[in-house]
């Protein structure tokens, strides 16, 4: 068959064309990024890895939803802008009876919800009863992860429009801290009644930003609430966008298409920090990553064995390896940034040779053979307190091999991982906790008390200590902070003595944003409150 001849210059033309195309690409790119932010200066765009599933405060426990809820709703009490001190919010003042069973809150006058409904004691009652009552007509989804945090509330009374009285079943030192948490957000009762189950997609609160629209997986738009009791926010709109891939969040931030991003890895944040137009904030985190040792499973029921494991782990090496230096070695389960933290006790030193000797001695004494074979359960996905679980598990495997423990890795999806640990089916387990309410009780009682040994309990080591339990119960009832502090000091010392866990590190919280964004500081609790956020004038440093 005859083939038409190829014009000799065709190849050259093709190459030239391709070259021209690529160079226009580069040129446009330059002008594109030079154009800077795509949105106007009064719009703040916050990229998160996921979209919230629901905006009903009682039905969620994921950070992406909490970041929205904190800006749309207020609570009776809240944390200071920079510390974890509890300060007034919708409640202007409060007092409790001598026996600690009756708490009276006086509401701030003149507060209205985004829909114009005035804030009354009845609204508070409805909001809290949605958490305390088993069945409530205005609960549209019964999955309420934080319900148990409000179980101490027996009755809610409203003697007048601006007074709320909480009657407790027993005195509670953590009531205020729990009322500052997002599930206790005060919701407009009018909106709940009117919207019914649609209220999960249309939150109406008293917060600094009012909800405008939400197209799932695309964007969630909120706008400044002019009548907010702390004054109107400085930006006009706050938009949340789900950007799943870390690399995309990094890229869009560099291009100025988004202004604030979180959940990035230490390495990504380090590289962003070097860019002149971006800033990376770092704050101490209210979290702990730890190694749970299942104390019901021999030979982990022997203190010597747990002690040897403890001594084999170099927490400083972990900080470098798994956190690129952005964490601090832990001695207690309670983070140092939290009140109640104590390190006034001895912990076993990092000393692999001594650990090896100790394990050999324990093997002889308790009749098990070396190398000791143990399974280490780990999660596949990163958590805020464990941004690189693979690096950590690799380190632990090597470190323990040095003292004669042969570790096999048992990896699962994160939710199944915790189910596995809660059921006590593990031997060693990598775990962590992020503060709910900034109270030491939340770390010590939740993670180590015998009350929380169950299929759904977070005492993953299955640690049982009568004294510890007494201290926890006393701490929950004691309203005098100084006395509580003593109780928690003793409890932490007890844990350091019994070693049911190896506290590994406390991770720093970090977030990246365009440098022009000001008035936003990372809060120790991890709350992202953007009431004061604004953009610096163009040209300003």
């Amino acid at each position, binding site marked *: *068959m*005859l*083939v*038409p001849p*190829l014009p000799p210059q*065709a*190849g050259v033309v093709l190459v030239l064309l391709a070259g021209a195309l690529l160079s226009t*690409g580069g040129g*446009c*790119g330059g*002008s*594109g*990024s030079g154009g800077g932010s*795509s*949105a*106007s200066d009064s*719009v703040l*765009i916050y990229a998160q890895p*996921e979209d919230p*599933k*629901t905006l*009903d405060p009682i039905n969620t*426990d*994921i950070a992406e939803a909490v970041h929205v809820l904190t800006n749309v709703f207020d609570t009776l009490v809240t944390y200071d802008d920079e510390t974890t001190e509890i300060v007034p919010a919708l409640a202007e003042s409060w007092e409790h009876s001598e026996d600690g069973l009756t708490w009276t809150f006086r509401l701030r006058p003149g507060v209205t919800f985004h829909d114009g409904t005035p804030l009354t004691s009845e609204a508070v009652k409805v909001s809290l009863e949605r958490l305390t009552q088993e069945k409530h007509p205005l609960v*549209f*989804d*019964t*999955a*309420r*992860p*934080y*319900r*148990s945090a409000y179980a101490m509330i027996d009755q809610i009374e409203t003697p007048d429009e601006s007074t709320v009285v909480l009657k407790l079943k027993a005195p509670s030192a953590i009531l205020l801290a729990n009322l500052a948490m997002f599930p206790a957000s005060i919701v407009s009762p009018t909106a709940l009644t009117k919207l019914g*189950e*649609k209220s*999960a*997609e249309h939150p109406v609160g008293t917060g600094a930003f009012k909800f405008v*629209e939400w*197209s*799932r*997986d*695309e964007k969630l738009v909120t706008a400044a609430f002019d009548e907010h009791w702390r004054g109107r926010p400085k930006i006009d709109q706050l*938009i949340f*966008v789900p950007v*799943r*891939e870390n*690399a*995309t969040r990094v*890229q*869009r931030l560099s291009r100025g*298409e988004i202004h604030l991003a979180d959940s990035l890895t230490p390495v990504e944040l380090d590289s962003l920090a070097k860019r002149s137009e971006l800033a990376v904030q770092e704050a101490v985190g209210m979290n702990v990553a730890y190694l749970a040792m299942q104390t019901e499973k021999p030979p982990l029921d022997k203190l010597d064995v747990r002690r040897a494991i403890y001594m084999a782990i170099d927490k400083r090496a972990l900080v470098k390896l798994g956190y690129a230096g952005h964490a601090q070695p832990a001695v207690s389960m309670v983070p140092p940034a939290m009140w109640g933290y104590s390190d006034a006790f001895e912990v076993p030193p990092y000393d692999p040779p001594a650990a090896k000797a100790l394990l050999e001695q324990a093997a002889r004494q308790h009749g098990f053979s070396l190398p000791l074979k143990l399974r280490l359960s780990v999660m596949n996905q990163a958590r805020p307190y464990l941004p690189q679980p693979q690096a950590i598990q690799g380190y632990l495997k090597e470190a323990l091999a040095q003292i004669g423990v042969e570790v096999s890795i048992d990896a699962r*999806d994160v*939710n*199944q991982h*915790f*189910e596995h640990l809660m059921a006590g089916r593990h031997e060693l387990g990598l775990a962590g*906790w992020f503060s*709910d309410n900034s109270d030491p009780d939340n770390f010590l009682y939740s993670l180590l008390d015998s009350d929380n040994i169950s299929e*759904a309990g*977070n005492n993953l080591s299955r640690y049982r200590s009568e004294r510890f339990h007494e201290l926890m119960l006393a701490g929950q009832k004691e309203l005098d902070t100084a006395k509580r502090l003593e109780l928690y000091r003793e409890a932490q010392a007890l844990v350091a003595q019994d070693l049911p866990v190896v506290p590994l590190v406390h991770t720093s919280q970090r977030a990246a944003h365009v440098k022009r964004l000001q008035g936003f500081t990372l809060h120790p609790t991890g709350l992202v409150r953007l009431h004061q956020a604004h953009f610096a004038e163009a040209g300003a440093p």
Partner: protein
Amino acid sequence: MIGYLVRRVLHALVTILVAVALVFIAVRAIPGNPLLARFGQHPDADEIARLRAENGWDRPVLVQLGQFLWQVGTTGDLGRSLARTNVNVTDELRKRIPATVELTLAALVLAIPLGIAAGIVAAVWRNRWPDRLGMFLALAGVSVPIFFLAICLREVVTFLPTSQRLPLTMSLEPLTGLLLVDSLLRGRPDVFVAAVRHLLLPAVVLATIPMSVVARITRSSLVDMLASDFIRTARAKGASLWRVVLRHALPTAAVPITNIAGLQIGLLLSGAVLTETVFDWPGLGRYLASAIIGDRDYVAIQACAIVIAVLFASLNLVLDLVYVWLDPRIRLQ
């Protein structure tokens, strides 16, 4: 002909049923469940047990399957999401399917004509540089993983948006859900331009594999065809090369090309899962990925399975009919 059609429809129905049943059972067999994802590190044992019972997961899986199929068959309701409070999955899918359809169509519009053109050029200048270049690119197109290509393109092509369907500050009340169509219907050229810009990168990425496959199959069918007697005769009678290729060879080669192109459309749906995730495209693929990976949302997963199975099966059905139209020999069998 009618008998043929009825047989094909029955085949399609059985395929859909089997696919849905397999997904339904498989998703329940893998460890983990949606309630674990809902409660995270704050589980409430009583509530979880109650919700399990409420959702009927304590019943045998075949009973659950039967109930589900009955519910879908009688009411068309795919159920309520387990991960997203009070959201009907049918509504969710209704919003997402147009996004995926738009992306898939855009990829097809790029892939099929360009693939056929490249195949023709390669076949005509067989073993010359256009052939070698074209087939090298085709090989590269099939071999480079979609997500890798996406990440590379995103870095290089900095003048096009890399996320979502529209800029955040822009929105449009949907009519059909296809932004390109809606923007024209509503007389919003600005939205149209923005939508095209957002569509370009993901469509190019998604188009690479089908384009390459179509190019290769076009080339090989045409090469065979161009060597055959009737082509030589046509050329001998003085028909020009392009006339011969376009009027005689290509229509005869259309059956294998249609066959492969059709299969590629089906595969585009699976490619969409990756492409949509990388480009934050709010379509079916991304919805399915987050339902499987994050939420284990049984209801959402099985609903997606139904939609995809129906799309696949109807596509195959249409293709079967297209063959009949293209090739009379099939009609006679």
